[in-house]
């Protein structure tokens, strides 16, 4: 569920981490639910970008893309009961102006080009740890 005053949600991702038999660490980011699922089909397991409504000149954005709330039930298709793993969830907002972009408009500043003017804010859950019984 989004904040009523803030940008819509782009997608929810599950991040899974594990160590394989060779001792090598792996991490995998899985898109599990996203806005406008009917039109945004995943390609090679990745959902393409949600779009961008940010007007950098005025530091505004529109909630015409994304979703106010996202919900799903997800089961790990690669779950291996003998393997230790951790999972956590990450939620991405649609692109919004950065605080530097707001300041630039408010104070009429001229900023060097390396200052980011938009970004996708995100929220994280704490991790859950799976250990084989």
């Amino acid at each position, binding site marked *: *569920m*989004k*904040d*009523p*005053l*803030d940008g*819509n949600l782009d997608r929810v991702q599950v991040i899974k981490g594990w160590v394989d038999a060779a001792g090598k660490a792996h991490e995998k980011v899985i898109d599990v639910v996203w806005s406008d699922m009917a039109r945004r089909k995943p390609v090679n397991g990745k959902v393409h970008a949600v779009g961008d409504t940010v007007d950098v000149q005025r530091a505004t954005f529109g*909630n015409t893309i994304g*979703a*106010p*709330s996202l*919900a799903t039930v997800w089961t790990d298709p690669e779950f291996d009961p003998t393997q230790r793993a951790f999972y956590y969830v990450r939620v991405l907002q649609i692109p919004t102006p950065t605080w530097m972009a707001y300041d630039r408009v408010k104070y009429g500043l001229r900023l060097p080009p390396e200052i980011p003017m938009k970004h996708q804010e995100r929220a994280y859950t704490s991790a859950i740890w799976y250990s084989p019984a």
Partner: protein
Amino acid sequence: MILNDSARRLLREPLVHFLIAGAAVYALLSGRPPDAGERRIVVNERVVSALVSRFEESFRRLPTKDETDGLIRDWVQDQVYYREALSLGLDEGDEVVVRRMRRKMEAMAVADAESRTPSDAELQVMLDRDPARYAEDPQTSFDQVYLGADTPENRALAQNALARLRRGEAVSPTPAPIPATFNAARSEAISTQFGDDFAIALRNLAPGQWNGPLASGLGLHLVRVTARTAATAPSLQKVRQRVENDWRAAANLRAREEAYARIVKGYDVVIELPK
């Protein structure tokens, strides 16, 4: 004769004068302990009882003998460092010291206002001047059906759903973690959940009937207000503490400003701005 001459010359030498004067001063001061004035630290009963009672305030018991010795040792260290630092001028230009001294002056200025208890009449005047400030937040009870994001399609569907609700039929909401019923919710809480625009629109709805769609920061909602308590005129008895806090804050501010005006009169303040 020659010896006499050289002795006289010697007596005219400034260096000799200096040495004699120095020896005299040394003789005067030698044997005196270095306890004059600022260089004497006395730990008397008054100091110790102050230390003990401060300890008791913190720990709710009396200090042991060892602890008392420790307190005294620490107090002596404080004094030594403090006096030495002052004599080195370490307080000069120290922002923390400056601010602390200012706070002490201000605390002295507001001591009178702080200890006064305002009369009911005084508070009633304050309350009457701005009753809205102390009024209880109005509360609203309502049911809502969430219809998803604010899109043209959902707006079209909303009309249909509204008609069904008004006929008494059920409408299944778009799944979202928003309660279907709110009981005696304060407008602040409603704003937090739905945004300010929704809270204001809700205030203008007549109770008893399904209305909408109302747009919130989350999307579209059909809403039925079931009960509403108006903002009540506050009685002094109920909001006395809040009025008194405001009264005290105002009185303290006035006392501080008056004290400052009095002190600053004795100063010549020159502000030189760079051209």
